[in-house]
């Protein structure tokens, strides 16, 4: 039984079968890569798991609980964190406020907001938020509004916003796109630490240098289906994966 179990999931948009009878497990505590050509259905699958889309058929379970049919905010509260291919943030809020707005607060009810009983909780979360911002290289930018961040910094902020929620599983959609090598290293290290602490991570990434050095397992998706699954070395050598995704070097015999 996987931590995240995807079983026979399909999703069509009009005539396009974006995800077609897709099944795989993400075992608890694993650090897993998720690759495939453009249009393979990786982001669609993320949207299905996080509840933004409803699958046509199939079942998605988190620790045994069915996710299909639940609203996205409830799935998030059940312990699922995700980032987007195009990073999302609260543009006018500062980085620190972005972090604080991402955790439940007693001050998000009207009455406590009026009488101010949320303050001790805020102080506590602020410390944690500052620490996480430091970890993703945004420590100096805590008070800058998110719309002043660069593309790479926004990605880091989005990851940090999810981490402060302490999810059980984190789905990252191309976390290194537009991110400098320094920050990529930092992110890789951070993910390894979180992995050692037991967080389950599933990463969509085209930057294979980064991905294959980081993860233990890779799932390859092609045309809405799982093509194969294995450790990074096996995936690198798999002729089907080379055909469908990695491609051949110039001069290699066809």
């Amino acid at each position: 039984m996987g931590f995240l179990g995807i079983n026979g999931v399909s999703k069509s948009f009009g005539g396009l079968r974006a995800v077609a009878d897709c099944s795989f497990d993400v075992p608890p505590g694993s650090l897993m890569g998720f690759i495939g050509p453009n249009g393979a259905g990786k982001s669609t699958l993320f949207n299905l798991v996080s509840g933004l889309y409803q699958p046509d058929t199939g079942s998605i379970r988190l620790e045994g609980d069915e996710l299909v049919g639940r609203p996205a905010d409830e799935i998030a509260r059940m312990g699922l964190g995700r980032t987007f291919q195009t990073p999302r943030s609260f543009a006018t809020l500062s980085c620190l406020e972005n972090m604080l707005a991402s955790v439940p607060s007693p001050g998000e009810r009207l009455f406590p907001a009026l009488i101010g009983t949320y303050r001790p909780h805020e102080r506590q979360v602020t410390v944690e938020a500052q620490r996480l911002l430091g970890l993703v290289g945004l420590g100096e930018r805590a008070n800058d509004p998110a719309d002043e961040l660069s593309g790479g910094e926004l990605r880091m902020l989005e990851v940090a916003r999810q981490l402060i929620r302490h999810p059980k599983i984190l789905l990252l959609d191309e976390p290194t796109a537009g991110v400098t090598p320094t920050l990529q290293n930092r992110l890789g290290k951070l993910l390894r630490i979180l992995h050692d602490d037991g967080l389950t991570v599933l990463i969509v990434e085209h930057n294979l240098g980064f991905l294959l050095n980081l993860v233990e397992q890779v799932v390859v998706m092609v045309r809405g289906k799982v093509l194969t699954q294995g450790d990074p070395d096996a995936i690198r050598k798999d002729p089907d994966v080379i055909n469908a995704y990695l491609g051949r070097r110039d001069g290699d015999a066809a």
Partner: protein
Amino acid sequence: MNWAQLLTTVVTVGSILGVVTLVLNMQYGHAGMINFGVVAYFAAGAYTYVLLTQSPPSSLDQYVVGLDLPVWVGFLGAALAGLVFAAITGWPTLRLRGEYLALTTFAFAEVFHSFILNEQRFANGTRGLVGLERPFRDQITFVDYNIFFAAAALAFLVIVYLIFERIVRSPYGRALEALRDDELALITVGKQSSRFRLEVFLFTAPFAAMAGAFHIWYTTLALPELFTAEVTFIVWIALILGGEGSNRGALIGIFLVVVFEELVRAIPFTSIRAAQIAAELEVAALGLLLIVFLRWQPFASLARVRRRTG
């Protein structure tokens, strides 16, 4: 020109409409929800107040209900009417965003306006009610009643401002701004955005409705023509002038508009023709002012809320 009188009028009208502007600012400036029907809360409060406090109908009246209840009952009833109206219009529109929400709220307000205009049994329809009582008129002997009333309206505005500021600066206000910036991002951190969307309507509408009761006290009139979409647009213009997203900006905006309108109104015209021309020019000038402010955004720096953390 009588400056003391002008000041009293500006404070009174500015305070009453200021509350409505603050309500719109909370809904649009902070939570990003476009409401083109704010006048409906205002009107619902005003007419509920009238319904609860007016004397029972005499033979000349067409209205059916007049409960002759005390002022404070009417005032609370107005607030409740705002809440009910917000629930009726907020619930079915929860899934609507942007321009769709704008159109629907506008339509709801038009339906309500059409109702008070055409239903004569409600408050005499088009003919309306005139010469309504002003509260504590007889008790206030120590100061000019108009000054007392201006002070009361201003006190009401200050209270609403303080409540709204407290909410805006709390995690609640932060969540509203997060909702405005990116609803999907808010949902994916596990927050139920629809709760905030509904609550914003519910907790702000009663204040606009109470402002409606104040408006009845001020004008002593319950006429449908005082509760047209024009009120909505005046408040929108004020909010854009002052810079949406800031309560202080909202107030600067509405007082600018009211000062401007009252100044034009205070000009002693010698002919009806001149007054008509001035009325037309007033609208044109207000439009010009709006364009100028949109271009240079003089109060834009007010818009970002500085929140203390911890």
